[in-house]
């Protein structure tokens, strides 16, 4: 009989997977055949050693706390997500696109199509000495609104990017 078959039978017996008839047959073989007895002794020694000597390893002392902190952080992420849900982000994006479209449409509406080949759309010429009041533009209601919108969008994008990286790092995507 080949060793592999012999081992399979002994392992099955040691694992308690053999039928009563097989067990009886095996017991007889072990008590009468030296080769079977020797193989049984070897496998039994390994089996018992695995049962008693295989250690359950312990992680660091802070393991449990680390897990609970990660779980608490997950709760915060969910809360932040509820504040900054996708509808608001899409709404702000839509507002931005609508504003750009309105400006373009207004510019097109201002074109005097009857003027022929000469362009009626006069772009303001850059004049020496002319000064654009950037401070006034930014501090005005339109400027302030734009700054707020862009800031929120930037924060939302940064949040999405950083959260993605964090999840990737912890494998909790």
């Amino acid at each position, binding site marked *: 009989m080949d060793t592999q078959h012999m*081992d*399979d039978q002994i*392992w*099955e017996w040691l*694992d308690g*997977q053999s039928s009563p008839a097989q067990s009886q047959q095996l017991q007889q073989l072990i008590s009468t055949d030296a080769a079977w007895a020797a193989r049984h*002794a*070897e*496998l*039994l*020694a*390994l*089996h*018992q*050693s*695995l*049962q008693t*000597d*295989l*250690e*359950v*390893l*312990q*992680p*660091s002392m802070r*393991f*449990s706390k*680390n*897990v*609970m902190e*990660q*779980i*608490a952080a*997950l*709760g915060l992420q969910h809360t932040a997500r509820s504040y900054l849900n996708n509808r608001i982000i899409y709404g702000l994006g839509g507002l931005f696109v609508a504003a750009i479209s309105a400006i373009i449409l207004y510019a097109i509406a201002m074109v005097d199509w009857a003027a022929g080949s000469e362009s009626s759309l006069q772009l303001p010429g850059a004049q020496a000495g002319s000064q654009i009041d950037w401070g006034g533009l930014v501090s005005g209601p339109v400027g302030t609104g734009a700054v707020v919108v862009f800031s929120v969008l930037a924060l939302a994008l940064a949040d999405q990017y950083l959260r993605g990286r964090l999840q990737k790092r*912890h*494998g*909790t995507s």
Partner: protein
Amino acid sequence: MATTPTDMELVHSVLQGQQQQFAVLVERYQGMVFSLAFRMVGHREDAEELAQSAFVKAYQHLAGFRGDSKFSTWLYTITSSVCLSFLRKRKLETYSLDQERVFSAADSQAGQYSANQVEGKSKRQLLQQAIAQLSPDDARLISLFYQGEQSLEEIGQIMELSANTAKVKLHRARQRLKTILETQFATELSDWQAP
């Protein structure tokens, strides 16, 4: 006298909003989850991080645990999956289940251990060293069967195999472990033999 809550009772408490009860489950299974991860990836820091990830994932999907299987079986399935993803990502060299390759690897490593290194090592340490040389699959099987107290059916569920295939694989894994022990720790192994 206070009785220890069962896994299922703890799961229900967590689902009802008592988040801190999850810490009891973590304390209860951290050793086995960490051991399983360590035996699969072979690196302590990675194993700790993966074990944490497994618990966080378990928490996130706790509502999906119906109790059809033991909580431990469900948790070890998640741990296995997290570790396998890690191994795939890292493209670590995974040993094939081909016996010859594992045996030749064991042979080549046999000379690396001097008599002095082996001398004085406890049976536990030797077993630990030998298991570290098994493939992640073999180490996982042995760990689940002997430490995780999982039946062959449950191991099959964790590894997505039939119980019969799990049984055959477990036989082979122990065979490979035996070969490693015989090749590298022959002297110590003779002391293990039953009188």
